[in-house]
């Protein structure tokens, strides 16, 4: 397997270097760019296998979003992860609407980033070799293909981010059991305040409801957490 190339667009020199060093040590070929123009011109020559994007790039406040849009136009399947210090609801909504595969905070440690990168590459591989992996997990009308990070409700793809997929997986794995917020955080490999867990759950629910208006399998257990109701 050829060495995977990862493009890291981050205006902060130290962070860029640290990330590049860490990921390089994990066997990836990492190219760092400090600005949108720099990255754009590089991408014009060749696309990387995965892109890690910061939103604010120096003076270019929304440079990350712009770059994301450009990249998505060129490739529908290129994995894109937003890695940012911004954590407002609006930022994440915009980012995800632009087709990013995940949106994580900078405080999320490098090991967790690594897990996401690995998962995304695993999906790329799975996509390229159709129907070879294990059969998808079935819950009610939900089918989960863990390698492809693909969740389908009544056969329609839910289009979940990596974090959302892992969260849903954690719920579905033990139907009827309450998963606390901390458990969900752990399984989704993110560290955020517990309030943003409910935001994530809400977003997952909404994606279900877009397909099935009467969807009510994700149950809130006040004071405890959430559970998958069969």
């Amino acid at each position, binding site marked *: 397997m050829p060495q995977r190339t990862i493009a890291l667009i981050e205006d*902060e020199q*130290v*962070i860029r270097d*640290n*990330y590049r*060093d*860490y990921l390089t*040590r994990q066997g990836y070929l990492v190219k760092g760019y400090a600005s949108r123009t720099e990255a754009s011109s590089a991408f014009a020559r060749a696309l990387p296998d995965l892109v890690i994007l910061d939103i604010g790039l120096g003076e270019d406040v929304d440079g990350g979003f712009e770059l994301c849009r450009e990249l998505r136009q060129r490739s529908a399947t290129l994995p894109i992860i937003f890695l940012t*210090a*911004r*954590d*407002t*609801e*609006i930022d994440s909504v915009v980012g995800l609407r632009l087709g990013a595969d995940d949106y994580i*905070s*900078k*405080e999320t*440690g*490098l*090991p967790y980033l690594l897990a996401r990168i690995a998962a995304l590459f695993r999906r790329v591989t799975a996509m390229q070799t159709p129907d070879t992996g294990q059969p998808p997990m079935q819950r009610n009308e939900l089918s989960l293909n863990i390698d492809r990070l693909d969740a389908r409700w009544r056969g329609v793809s839910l289009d979940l981010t990596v974090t959302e997929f892992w969260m849903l997986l954690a719920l579905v794995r033990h139907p009827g059991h*309450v998963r*606390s917020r901390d458990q969900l955080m752990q399984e989704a490999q993110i*560290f*955020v*305040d517990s*309030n*943003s867990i*409910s*935001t994530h759950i809400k977003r997952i629910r909404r994606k279900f409801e877009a397909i099935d208006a009467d969807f009510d399998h994700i149950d*809130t*257990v*006040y*004071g*405890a*957490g959430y559970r998958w109701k069969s």
Partner: protein
Amino acid sequence: MAPRFRHSLRFKLLLVSLTLLLIPWAGYQYLKQLEQSLKQSQERLLLNRAEIVADMLANIDLDWADLNPRDVSGTRPSLYVHPLTTPPDIDGYPEEWQNLSTQTRRFNARSNPSAAVGFDWLAGRAGDSLYLLIEVYDPHIIYPRSDRSLDQGDHLILAVPGDQGKTTQFTIGTPAPGWVSIHSNGAAPIPAGLRGEWQESDRGYRVELQIPLALTRGRLSLAVVDVDAPDQQPQGIASTSGWRKNINLAYLALPNRQADHYLSNLEHRHYHYTLLNRQRQVIARQGKVLTRDQRSDPLWRGLLELLFADPLRPSFTEREGLGELDGPEIRQALNGQGGVYRYPSPDSPLTLLSSAYPVRLGDRVEGVVVVEQSTQEILLLQQDASEDLIGLSLGLFLVTGGSLLWLASLLARRITRLSDKYQKLVSPDGRILGEPETSTHRDELGRLDNSLASVLKRTQAYTRYLESMASRIAHEFRTPLSMIQSSLENLQLTVSDQAQGDSPYVTRALEGTQRLNLILRRLREATRLEQAFQNAERVEIDLAPLLESLCQGYQDSHPQIRFQAQTPEAGVISYINPDLICQAVDKLVSNAVDFHQPETPIVLGITILSPDWTRLSVENQGSNLTLEEPGQIFMNMKSQRGPGQQGPHLGLGLYLVRLIAEFHEGRAWAENTPGGVSFGLDLPSRNESPDGSATP
């Protein structure tokens, strides 16, 4: 809160408007002056009138010699004869004399003061006859045995001028009450028309006599002889004057017909004219004084009397008596000078104005003309003016006072509204709750409103800046923290690559950064919450099952602690966002878990405060709060945790609780309970009564 009325603007303006009462006062002073000048001019006019009448009387042919009895000694009495409109019946009863009853004159026995005899004299004239009413005081009436011996009993002696300086005397008596018998002392016959009636009275007897006027020739004397034993000397004799010699007889002061007739031709509806001789005896009298105040009602009169009371002077009824008139002005006139005097009337608020002017014949004062008039006209005028004045002042006072009061109320209401507006805009713990509306008024109050609003806006901006400080600090810290964290993660990898396993220092440093991350996350949580409010959906939900479910959840998460839920039977429907409320309760429970005394339960309760309010509370046993400033504990970065507590605590939990409470139009509170603390939220709700029906 409205100030007490005594301290209010309204009261102050009302006080100021009291100065309007100076208007009626000034008017009153003016009226007083007016009255004074009116009185003076009335006096002058009245004196003029008296003078004119006196001058005219001096020019008509009056027999002043007859009117003024030649008075040699100056001490001889004269007897006044009242004019009578109709001749009285000679019946011995005083009914016809009733209106003159105050004019009687008393004569007592002069020789023997101890003698009880005395009589009241009253004389009147009608036509050509003189009428006498003699009221004799005699406890022992002795009647003579027969008509022939009248001097053997109580009797009267009437003396009239006779020949040769001696008087003609008539003895008048009777053996029994009834017509009197009359004996002449000489050979003179009893003149026709001389008759009388004798009647007993309570105190003695009464004799009513008719005497032909011609008989008297202007002079007479009457004596009452009191006999207590038929054969003895008389006990006492009372007489009007000596009765044996002509010269001793008293003069009769008779009303003069000519003068009377002259006076009757004068205007006499409002004036009372009296002509007096030098003895101040009334010679002629015409006209009358209006003494009845006909038009005003007692209330006005009382009020005006109070305002225009005159200093008291002797009542004018006392100046009249015995057919005489007396008074300072009359005495002055007798001395040759016209004068005016004022008498108060005892039974009306009027005063009597009396002017006197001498009637001169050459240098000699022969009589006095007295003209009397009541002050009725002035009083009426004054009354009208006063009524107008009082009415006008009252109206003016009402209008101005009313306007001032209205203005004061308006201002007070606006000030109160202004105060309320800003009171509502700032919460009890000092936060600014909303944008003040700017005032459209352009006056000082409007400007005050706008300036307060701008002050508030600036304060609000500053408060926002301070409140957002935490989240901005958190944001700014993230990048450097990320640098450290990623460097440490690299270092950890390097160290483990060099095969000595994990360096404890790197691990500890990483733990530190994780802790820092946690702090930053907590700091950001508040900011995130405010964002969450923007798209938080609210639903109507029964709080009781929610709290019970929460309680179950906490019990599952903390098996070592006992949780109790105390919820009412009836439903407590509240319009809330359950996630946010749960988050708030989470914070309170997490606090309670940290502070509770081991082995004691944590109580989650719902209390119905009113049909519209419900209280969610989380109570635990443990140390009390030091609640110096209630509400402060719900402030950003305020923590009461002592040292030695585990985990980072920034005092954000309760701040979030407060934000959530306020998002639901409720409030967060904290209080000490016996042996513990209680925290909670008061939320608006629709509470059902226990029978299940919703209260309105």
